[in-house]
């Protein structure tokens, strides 16, 4: 056979379940309890409202620049539902729904955007890593966590996220390759929101889909309607189950649109057309899911309104709490910058700490107690 086409034994699919009218494909529709469906809506709504509130706070100068997550709720929530607390959640930075679901408080999220490392401390009881700023870098941690699971003979799964832009980084390639070579139980979710800041996906790559990159790693790939929480749930569940059963990694491409600017510092009118955004407006995940729930008589408008009120109060209280909290140590203490670099502070660093304390006129004996207290309370992995 001197010249012939090579057959690629691949498993590359597309999945959508819920259309824009809120109609589900009954053959594919997952069987979920009414209470679960209701809770799903609530988590997504909470994430949405937190995002909107963060925007206001940012405009008021009460938090720093942040990347909005509006429109990405279904991707994060649909997938996070399929893992256990002991599984690992390795997010990028638009997984607000997932963070909330995993127990990150609104207070913690606020602390992060107010510029405190304390906002990057994962809650107890779950295996989460915090927001990862350098795009793609977290994917290797996910691969390593999955490899460690196999070495330890455990049955945990790792769920990780990255953007269409992040797919261009070498780390993404290395992570997908390591995970596939070692059959690590990792589900890689690519949030393809079609933009990396200003760069459209068509300039980010020449392949028609992110999904087909799975072929390069001999792993299954599936492209999912990322605005469809049911499809996200089903695709993730399959991938998570396969991973847990020793079937190795999966690449999920969740197709959506970045409805907002990249961050609060971005002005998308510079590089994309308003019309395009409008096309996507009807497809956004919450409206569609609300329609579905209404049709199914799981959640009425009145119930939604009650939810809205509860959430409003919840967010308001969190803001109040945090704005009080940061007036006190350790938040108000700049010397805290020295206290968690190494398990024990080495002499040269203690000297720098003392130097800064002196410059700021702080009595360091007080502070040391705070640190000890805080350390003792650290649970989880440490």
């Amino acid at each position, binding site marked *: 056979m001197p010249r012939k086409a090579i057959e690629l034994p691949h498993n590359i699919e597309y999945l959508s379940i819920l259309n824009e009218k809120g109609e589900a494909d009954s053959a594919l529709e997952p069987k979920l309890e009414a209470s679960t469906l209701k809770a799903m809506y609530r988590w997504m709504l909470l994430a949405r409202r937190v995002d909107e509130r963060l925007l206001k706070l940012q405009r008021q100068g009460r938090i*720093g*620049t*942040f990347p909005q997550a509006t429109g990405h709720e279904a991707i994060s929530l649909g997938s996070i539902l399929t893992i256990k607390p002991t599984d690992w959640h390795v997010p990028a930075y638009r997984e607000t729904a997932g963070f909330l679901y995993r127990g990150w408080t609104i207070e913690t999220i606020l602390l*992060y955007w*107010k*510029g*405190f*490392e304390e*906002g*990057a401390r994962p809650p107890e009881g779950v295996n989460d890593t915090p927001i990862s*700023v*350098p*795009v793609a870098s977290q994917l290797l941690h996910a691969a390593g966590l999955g490899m460690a699971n196999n070495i330890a003979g455990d049955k945990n799964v790792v769920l990780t996220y990255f953007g269409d*832009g*992040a797919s*261009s*980084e*070498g*780390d993404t390639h290395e992570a997908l390759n390591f995970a596939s070579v070692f059959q690590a139980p990792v589900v890689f979710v690519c949030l393809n929101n079609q933009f*990396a*800041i*200003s*760069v459209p996906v068509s*300039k*980010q*790559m020449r392949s028609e889909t992110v999904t087909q990159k799975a072929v390069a790693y001999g792993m299954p790939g599936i492209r999912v309607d990322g605005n469809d929480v049911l499809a996200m749930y089903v695709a993730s569940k399959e991938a998570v189950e396969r991973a847990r059963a020793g079937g190795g990694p999966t690449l999920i491409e969740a197709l959506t649109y970045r409805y907002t600017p990249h961050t609060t*510092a*971005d002005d998308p009118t*510079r*590089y994309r057309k308003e019309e395009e955004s409008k096309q996507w407006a009807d497809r956004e995940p919450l409206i569609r899911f609300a329609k579905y729930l209404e049709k199914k008589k799981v959640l009425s408008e009145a119930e939604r309104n009650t939810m809205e009120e509860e959430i409003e109060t919840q967010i308001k209280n969190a803001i109040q709490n945090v704005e009080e909290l*940061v007036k006190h140590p350790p*938040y108000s203490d*700049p*010397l*805290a*910058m*020295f206290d968690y*670099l190494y398990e024990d502070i080495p002499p*040269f*660093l203690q000297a*720098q*700490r003392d130097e*800064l304390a002196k*410059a*700021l006129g702080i009595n360091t004996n007080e502070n040391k107690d705070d640190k000890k207290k805080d350390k003792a309370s650290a649970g989880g992995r440490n």
Partner: protein
Amino acid sequence: MAQMNMAESINLALDEAMGRDKRVIVMGEDVGYDEGVFRITKGLIAKYGDKRVIDTPLAEAGIIGTAIGMALYGLRPVAEIQFAGFEYYAYHQLEMHAGRFRNRTRGKLTVPMVMRAPSGGGIRAIEHHSESREAIYAHSPGLKVVMPSGPRNARALLHAAIQDPDPVVYYEPKALYRLFREDVPEQIETLPIGRAQVVKEGKDITLISYGATMRATLEAAEMLEEEDGVKAEVVDLLSITPLDTQTIIESTRKTGRAVVIHEGPRTCGLGAEVIARINEHVLLYLEAPIIRVTGYDVPIPYFAREMAYLPDADKVLNAARQTLSF
């Protein structure tokens, strides 16, 4: 002669360089239609088109590695890394190739490229957006490293960097982008790479700094003069590699006292090198230990605590007083 801020003057230099020399190419993440996240590449794509102003995929090693290829071809790429903190993704290309091709090929193949990157803190950014690690490039043979401290020298240094036959790391202290304006002359200026400037003459103590911390340094010098009657000489290094040993030692020989100020971590930072060179050449003239006012050896904190990390005029002032009263 026009008043402009540093963001504008860097933009001007890019525009001028592209206008003069067709080989000059601007590339990086969002440098095209978005005109750069700090608008440093404003107007360039409209004027020079998307062949010469290139929105790249999101991959730093890709940016630096292909820029090296372009430079080998004969172009003069000016590659932007969106934030200096992300350059580590590409460090292997800078270290292994940009700084070595001329040496490796005994002068046959050269890499006349510039890597621009906004560096430093003070703009309330999130993690990895405030790093200042010029010392790493200073420790990497074959690279040149420069760092402006104001609109006028920013433009002149960028022209020098682009014209330089060897790879230059051009670190932009982003806190200065829009902090102040100054006169920038009509005519294109260049500053020689490898030369520091004495920006204020004095006789009692030498304050040595560069980049963003020049502001705090100059402020401290004024306070010293007003409050203590001390005449500080202020040196703006401008070039990190080659470091202008001559200017450093002449000033220190004269004053006998020095403080070195920079944002990057202290250990193995530029301050150490400045002290080592002073020690080597004019030790006997020193009347007091040289104090380093620098970033501490921790990652620059998230922004709620970053101001405490950064050198400021008070810290410089205290260090100077400590030196003077030694």
